[in-house]
């Protein structure tokens, strides 16, 4: 069976722990990158990895590596302070990549 991981600030991930997900608190992007690397090394044990947006902001390359692979899915989630729009940004850039232009209109 595959697992789901959540990487984010200690307070953000706390709630997910109660849901039964594996949580990895990370204080800064460097630490988060390290966790991400150790989770994705070896087998595809983790099918979904949720990463808090404010950490992901500085982890562009690390995350882009997984864009073209079927697993794991790396999904950005907003942090405690609400969304900074990075998740939506990723959607728009994927649309732009495929269509060649932004067709969503925002």
């Amino acid at each position, binding site marked *: *069976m*595959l*697992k*789901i991981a959540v990487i984010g600030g200690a*307070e*953000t991930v*706390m*709630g*997910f*722990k*109660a*849901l*039964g*997900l594996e949580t990895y608190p990370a204080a800064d992007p460097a630490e988060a990158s390290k966790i991400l690397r150790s989770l994705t090394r070896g087998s595809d044990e983790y*099918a*979904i990895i*949720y990463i808090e947006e404010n950490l992901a902001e500085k982890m562009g390359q690390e995350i882009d590596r997984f*864009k*073209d692979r*079927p*697993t794991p*899915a790396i*999904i950005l*989630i*907003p*942090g*405690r302070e*609400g*969304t900074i729009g990075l*998740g*939506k940004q*990723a*959607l728009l850039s*994927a*649309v732009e*990549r*495929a*269509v*060649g232009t932004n067709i*969503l209109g925002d």
Partner: protein
Amino acid sequence: MAGTAVTPTRMVLNQLKGRLKTARRGHKLLKDKRDELMRQFLDVIKQNKELRERVEQGLTDAFASMQVASSLMSPEMLEQSLLYPRQSVELGIKYKNIMSVNVPVYSFSTKNNDPSEIYPYGFAQTSGELDDALGKMADVFQDMLELAQVEKTMQLLAEEIEKTRRRVNALEYIMIPELEGNIKYISMKLEENENATKVRLLKVKEMVLQDAHNYKQ
């Protein structure tokens, strides 16, 4: 085009004609593939956009409730209550094939099916706000899973569309014009050779006749 090294022979001409036919067919097929992928993609991004908005809204709500809970309880207490989850999630993954792109389909099951099992603590020492926060978390989690699936599908489709589009363009604007140019070049060259031969034969005939009969036209 004509500058490229093609030998103007009938054999090469036939070969090129064959390749042009294949290229045209490939172009049509790829174009159809691209159109279909695009159609699927548009559905997926619409879904993705909705889900993302819902998840972001839901999580922001949940975090706000959590904030309230954490302000009502001491940090140690809060950490302690959430230390040992009673619930665990198992995720199954299958792949679905959309136009030869393998996209994941997740199925998940929780160890405990009772929704009240998400609270890993006794109610005596925790505040009601924490229950509220966890409840909201659990609600939004279903959407989060779906979001993961849709977003991954979207990324994979985007990549495939980009690849297909490049191929279509390469065929349409480079391969096919080049082949056509070469074919034109060869057929013109062959025609030219044919004319040259005809003229030479006429000339030779004239010379031979003159030699034989001293015949003048």
